[in-house]
């Protein structure tokens, strides 16, 4: 496991509630391609690089596997930000997966932002297996951005009253 022991989502939520907003620690879900970023994260661990424990790494076979619905689901289930990482264009293990992902996620990101999502909350980066430093820097950067934004309000608990 390339990730440090992380607090559970509910512990993070409880911590947020208990202390001031400055103490907010975001939960970030990172979909990492098995063939590149996942190894890059592993390498970061081997090299004892430290990066925020806010990120939860979820291994996927390819960035092309990341159904945009995953992103919405992650936000609805309590994540404050979502990061999708895959191989650099041209390097896809399956030849074209990341090319499809690039188009799809580019359009999807614009659609989410159109409906008011802060751009920082959903990001896509290409990180190869040797780019441990880039993985660390990306996680730090995204984490700082989302910490500054504060928690994501999905509206899960606001049941819609049709009348009222």
């Amino acid at each position, binding site marked *: 496991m390339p990730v440090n022991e992380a607090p559970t989502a509910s512990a993070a939520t409880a911590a947020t509630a208990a202390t001031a907003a400055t103490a907010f620690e975001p939960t970030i879900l990172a979909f990492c391609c098995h063939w590149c970023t996942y190894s890059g994260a592993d390498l970061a661990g081997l090299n004892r690089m430290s990066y925020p424990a806010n990120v939860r790494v979820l291994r996927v076979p390819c960035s092309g596997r990341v159904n945009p619905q995953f992103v919405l689901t992650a936000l609805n289930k309590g994540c404050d930000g979502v990061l999708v990482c895959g191989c650099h264009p041209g390097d896809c293990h399956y030849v074209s997966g990341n090319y499809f992902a690039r188009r799809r996620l580019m*359009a999807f990101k614009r659609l989410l932002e159109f409906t*008011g999502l802060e751009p920082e909350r959903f990001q896509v980066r290409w990180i190869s297996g040797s780019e441990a430093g880039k993985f660390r820097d990306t996680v730090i950067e995204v984490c700082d951005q989302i910490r500054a934004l504060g928690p994501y309000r999905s509206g899960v608990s606001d049941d819609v009253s049709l009348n009222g």
Partner: protein
Amino acid sequence: MSLSTAEALTDALREEARRLLAEGTVAVVVGWEAGRFPNQTTPAFISDPEQAQRLVYGDYCVNTLAKYALGEKAAGKVAVCVRGCDSRGINRMIADNQLLRDEVYLLGLPCSGMKDPATGSLLMKCRTCTEHDAVTYDVLLGPATAAGHDGASADSSAGDSEHVSDEQRFTAVLGIEEMAPEKRRALFDAAFNKCIRCYACRKSCPCCTCRECFVDQLRAGWQGKQNNLAENRFYNITRVFHIGDRCIECGECERACPMGLPLMALNRKMVKDLKSLFNADDAGMTEENSAALGRYDLGDLEEFM
């Protein structure tokens, strides 16, 4: 269109429908008939030549009929009345392998935009329509209107249907894009809050033809059944994304929505982005499937480095 044009087209439609049914060319004709209220029409399904006189055509044929071809084709060849929107819907379903061109017989009709029977004003969906006239048909009943075609306008009221520029087509999208993010969020949160998830939008959409919608994949659990902002947002955004690169911009979803959600602004956001990013074609203009998200180009814009 003028009353006389509407009457002439109605007569031509009835005659053609009667002939097609009597000769056995088609099993059913899908068109419109008068409803209970003044100017109201409702989709009609005629399989008896004697009943062809029920068909009407005029300024108030608000329903886009394309999707009915899927339900009717089991009985034999289906004649469908088509204008720009209906014909693009048919093309779209052919491209999506839902329909064969041979399973339908298309009765092309000129269109100068349809009106709301309650108010008499041009329907929202028709104000931003780029293709009033059928893009494909087996027979054309009456002359084409002006928009997008070379022919002279059918009559003076065709002025309603002057060519719609991209700027006009994307007015709503551009307006929203200019807003501050918080304002956009507030706008769509209010809209998604209104949604009752009756699914009229997906049911009326000629692009929504999945045998099993993600909404109904209970085992996968994509869509919770609770009505709250998060679930409503999930549904609406996913719906748009699923049809975004195939949307024919018929506007049926927005017309069908009982709660008045700005669904076409969402659809057109996708259409506009795909057009500008990937030079996507307008959907449903041909039978070819050229959906922008189903393919890629090595030289696509790179913004994820």
